[in-house]
Every structure is written in C-alpha cells, then in structure tokens.
C-alpha cells in the first residue's frame, strides 16, 4: 500500500483538521494553567486564553477551507459543508465564552475548567461536522456530549443543576448506545463504516445477500435515527430537554441549544442523505412523523411554561421540528434550508439565552417570565435585544428567523410536503403567543410593588421584578453580535443561502 514517495500522512492532513488542533492545544493550556491555581476567581487569565483560542480556531477554519479534500484515510473531509459548520461552531464557542465571562463571576463559579470544556466540546463538534466515517462520528459525538454533560452540572452545589447533568448523562449515553448499535449493524451489512463506501454498497446490493442485509440496514438506520433524534431533541425523544435546559447554567443551555444540535444535524445529514440515500423511501416517514410531532408538541407545551428557560427549551424542540421539515424535503434545497436555519437559530436563541443569563443573578433567582415585568423601561437596551430575538424566533420579516422559515417551507412545498407545510405554518402562528408573552411583560406590565418585607423573606405569589443590573462589556458584545447577525440574515440572506446551497450540492453529489 505505501510507496516510498508518498508519506503515510501528508502534512496537508493536519491543515485540514487545524481548527480542532488549535482548540485542543488551547484547552490543554487552560488545564495546565488551571491545575496549580489555588484561589477562586482563577478564571481571570484562562478566560482570555479561551477567547483567543476560540478566535484562533475561527481563523483556522478559514485556513482549513483553503485545503478541501479528504484526510486520514477518508475519516474526515473538508468541503463547503464542513467549513460552514466550522465557522458556525467556533463562532458559537466564542460567544458562549463571552457570555460566561459575565455569568460565571456573577454566580461565583469563575473557574477555568468551564472554558476548557467549551473548547473540548467544540473539538468534538468540529469533527462531527467533517467526519465521513461512522466511528469517528461516534467518537466526536461522545467528545462533544461528555463535555456538555459536565457543563450542565457546572453549578454543582445547586441540586437542580446536578440533576440536569445526571439526566442528560443517562439519557444521552442511552441514545449514544442506540446510535452505536446502528453503526454496528450498518458495518455488518456493508463491511465498511465509510460514508461514501456505504452509499456505494447500498446503491448496488449484491444479489445473493440482498434480502437479509436490506433488513439489517433498515434496522441500523432506525437505531441511528433514535440516537440522533435524542441529540437533536426531536419528539418522541425529547423528554430530557426541558429538565436539562432548565437546570443547566444559562450559558450552557445556550451552548447546548445551538452547538451540539447543529453538529448533530450535520452528522444526521451526512448519514441519511449521503450514506443511506438509496434507502430514503424507508426512513423518510420517520423524519416526517418526527417533524410533525416535534413542532406540535414543542409549541403546545411551550404555551404552558412560566420559567423562561423551560419555555425556550420547548421552543427549541419546536424549532428542531421546523428543521426536520426542511430535512424531510431532502435535496439541495432542503439541506441548505437546514443549514441556513441552524445559523439563524443559533444567533437568535443564543441571544435570548444571553439576556436570560445576564438577568439571572445569583443562583439563577430571576428566570421566570413574570420577573420581566416592566423591564423594557428599566433596562431598555437588553429588553430591545430580547424583543428582536423573540420576533426572530416567531419569524417576523427583517429578521433571520423569517428567511429561515421561508426557505424551509419553500423547500417543503417544492418536495410536495403540503401537509407538513400547513401544519408548520399553523404552529408558527401558535408559537407567536408564547414568544410575545415576555415582550408584553417587558413593555406593557408594570413591575409589581412588593409588600415591605424583611429582606430575603418570600414574597408570596408575586414574582419580584428583576433588580437593576449593570451591563458588562462581554454581554454587550454578545448582544450586539447576535442582533447584528439576526438582522443581517433578515436583510441580506442571499450570500449565506448561496453558500449553503453550494455546500449542500457538494455534500449530496460528492
């Protein structure tokens, strides 16, 4: 196999995984700084290291994009799809680190491990985006998942947070086992774990073994669907989402709702639209049903929530439903709509969580929607930003969410998914109600006057208004960035969509 002239591993392979190398190095450096540090507030140096690391990785994605092609015996591929998700994921990591700079000192949790875990998690997600081999996908998925399990329990003295972490861990590893079993069956049926080789083997099944391997492939596809359904929190695999989103620290919830979900959709797309393309008639209905259920269940349950984080959790289930509609539309149109929506969704959802995280205060005291009464007058700028994000989540024109939904439903109509489109539009209308509730609270409700009680005494049924909170630099940057991206995607969606369409064609046609 090896000739003397070509080295076993050409140097360009390392350039193709440069973002991941950068993130790993910075993560390890943080751990080395963090280990010997002895006092609380140690995050002071490490957070800047982490920020530099995430930005360097963002730049490294650009270098990566100059060297398209396979790396490490077809384990990893740099193409438009990988690069799109690379930019998205490193940008999310950067924003989350900025958010944590504001949140962690507020919660007296300012330790460097948080930043190292965010970087390591991003390594896993970067590999998920580019992996073209099932075992690498599995390992990458686990790297990202294990990091987020720990992050979910980062407020480790808060029972809710550790409980969220435990639930996430148990259900997450349960789902991973299904995913892995699916991989094993696909490997058994085709004798390979490479995406392109699987696609070839399934497109031209050998005559003798056709019946039996066909069934094994379908079983494997179903098992992988279950595993990935958990990761993107599609109904009926969503049970963990509300509890974990409510219990995890707010910046972690923002991270979980954007980055691992985007990366999970990346491997979802690669496996199902490339490797299992020949069997699309069999798994299409799974996707169809999951999309329908996710939209409906997510939106209806969100109507009933008072906790802001829990409401956004159900909203994220519904949003996963919209994305699955685009997925079910298949083709380059559908895939590009998924990618565009994931980008818009990341910006608006992280923005919303940034506001929640900023106003949470010590021990996440103020995370009820009723706490937000009258906030529009006391904190005009954050309230304005939150309104922009919520309008975008509804899908109001001039926001990224609007074009995201337009592309999704356009792709669905092109693929004759009329029923899904109608139900999706009805759901969007329904969702407006709960997205508008915080806006109404902020601008049309007076802050309740609390009866004079001893400080710290429970105030009965009245949710106290959020006390005045000073804007910190990092959170201002986060909000400005998210608003800018949401508006930009809502006004000039063309370039991002064109790029997504190009990468989708690249993904589907080799």
């Amino acid at each position, binding site marked *: *196999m*090896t*000739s003397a002239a*070509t*080295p*076993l*591993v*050409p140097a360009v392979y390392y350039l193709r995984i440069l973002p991941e190398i950068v993130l*790993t190095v910075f993560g*390890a450096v943080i*751990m*080395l700084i*963090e*280990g*010997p540090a*002895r006092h*609380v507030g140690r995050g002071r140096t490490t957070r800047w290291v982490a920020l530099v690391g995430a930005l360097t990785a963002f730049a490294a994605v650009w270098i990566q994009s100059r060297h398209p092609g396979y790396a490490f*015996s*077809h*384990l990893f591929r740099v193409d438009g799809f990988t690069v799109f998700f690379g930019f998205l994921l490193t940008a999310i990591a950067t924003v989350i680190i900025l958010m944590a700079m504001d949140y962690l000192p507020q919660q007296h949790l300012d330790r460097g491990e948080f930043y190292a875990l965010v970087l390591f998690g991003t390594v896993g997600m970067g590999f998920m985006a580019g992996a073209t*081999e099932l*075992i690498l996908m599995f390992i990458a998925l686990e790297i990202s998942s294990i990091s987020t399990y720990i992050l979910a329990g980062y407020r480790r*003295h808060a029972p809710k947070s550790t409980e969220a972490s435990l639930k996430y861990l148990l259900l997450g590893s349960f789902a991973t086992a299904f995913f892995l079993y699916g991989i094993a069956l696909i*490997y058994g049926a*085709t*004798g*390979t*774990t*490479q995406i392109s*080789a699987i696609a070839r*083997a399934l497109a031209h099944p*050998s005559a*003798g*073994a056709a019946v*039996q*391997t066909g069934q094994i492939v379908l079983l494997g596809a179903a098992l992988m669907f279950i595993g990935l359904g958990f990761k993107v929190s599609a109904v009926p695999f969503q049970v963990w989402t509300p509890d974990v989103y409510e219990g995890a620290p707010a910046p972690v919830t923002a991270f979980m709702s954007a980055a691992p979900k985007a990366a999970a959709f990346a491997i979802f797309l690669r496996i199902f639209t490339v490797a299992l393309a020949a069997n699309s008639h069999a798994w299409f209905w799974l996707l169809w049903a999951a999309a329908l259920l996710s939209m409906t269940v997510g939106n209806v349950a969100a109507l009933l929530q008072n906790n802001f984080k829990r409401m956004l959790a159900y909203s994220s289930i519904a949003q996963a439903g919209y994305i699955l509609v685009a997925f079910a539309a298949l083709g380059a149109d559908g895939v590009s709509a998924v990618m565009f929506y994931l980008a818009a969704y990341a910006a608006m959802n992280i923005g919303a969580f940034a506001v929640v995280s900023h106003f949470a205060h010590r021990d996440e005291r103020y995370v009820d929607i009723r706490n937000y009464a009258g906030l529009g007058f006391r904190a005009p700028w954050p309230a304005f930003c939150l309104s922009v994000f919520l309008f975008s989540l509804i899908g109001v024109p001039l926001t990224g969410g609007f074009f995201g939904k337009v592309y999704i439903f356009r792709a669905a109509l092109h693929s004759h998914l009329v029923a899904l489109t109608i139900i999706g539009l009805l759901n969007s209308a329904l969702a407006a109600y709960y997205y508008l509730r915080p806006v109404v609270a902020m601008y049309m409700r007076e802050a309740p006057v609390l009866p004079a009680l001893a400080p710290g005494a429970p105030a009965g049924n009245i949710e106290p208004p959020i006390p005045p909170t000073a804007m910190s630099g990092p959170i201002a940057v986060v909000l400005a960035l998210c608003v800018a991206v949401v508006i930009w995607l809502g006004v000039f969606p063309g370039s991002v969509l064109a790029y997504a369409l190009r990468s989708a064609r690249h993904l589907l046609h080799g």
Partner: protein
Amino acid sequence: MGEYTIGRGNSTREIAAMTSTPSYMANYLPILIQFVLALALALGLIVASRLIGQRRPGKIKLSPYECGMTPKGDVRSGFAVKFYLVAIVFILFDIEAVFLLPWAVEFRRLRVLGLVEMIVYIAIVLAGFTYIWKRGVLDWNTPERNEPTLPPSVARTGNH
C-alpha cells in the same frame, strides 16, 4: 496510495452461507462435559455436607470472621470521596493505555510518524495527569482544596 484503509473488505460475502454449518456443536462437547462435571461436583459437595455433616453452631462460629477482628457497626459506612476520585482517575488512565497496543503491533511500519503521534498522544494524557496532580486529587494527606466539607449525613451513600 498512502492510505491505510479502515473498514473496506471483500464486499460480496453472503451472510446466509454462514448461518447453517453442520455439526459445529461437536467441537464444544468437551466444554459441555466440563460444565456438567463442575455443576455435579459443586452440588454433590453441598448436598453431601448437608447429609453427613454435623452442625453445632456456636457464637464464634456464626460470626463473620472466625479469626480476626470482631466487626463493628454498619458496613455501609461510606467511603471518603477521595476513594471515588482515585477510582475514576484510575479507570481513565488505565484504559488510555489501550491505544499503545495497536501502535506497538504496527510500530515498525509506522516508523517515526507513529512515534511522534504517540508522543503527542501521551503528552495530551500527561497534561490531564498534571491537572489532577496539581489539583491535589492524588494528595492523600490534605483535605480537598476548594471543596466545602460534607455534612456528616451526606457522607453516607446508597440509602434509598
């Protein structure tokens, strides 16, 4: 060229051909005999001692250890968290050595590249090791740093 392939085999084998090989069980007959013998011996000894043995229970004979210390208190008294930490760390470093095995097998073919890759791998593992070492996980004599001490009621685990 230059690719060590993973997961590509002769792709036209039939699963059906594998499922019906005659008389494969014959090879496993000795194992079956051994199972039966072991079972018979164990059961026979227990039954025999019941039948012909004499029973004169006394206080010392009924204690958990006939010689040695008299057990005191509840056995489920809870371990110091340190034990769990060391156990967790042990699992990780123990299993990480598994990757040395395939590398050792292919050491000659991988040459310098393999060596460098393995050094990088070990360096990453060592970074983790340095972290836990500096955080004092391996330090038995000092109390956990930055850890609030547990109330005594929490030190017990496993109560349902």
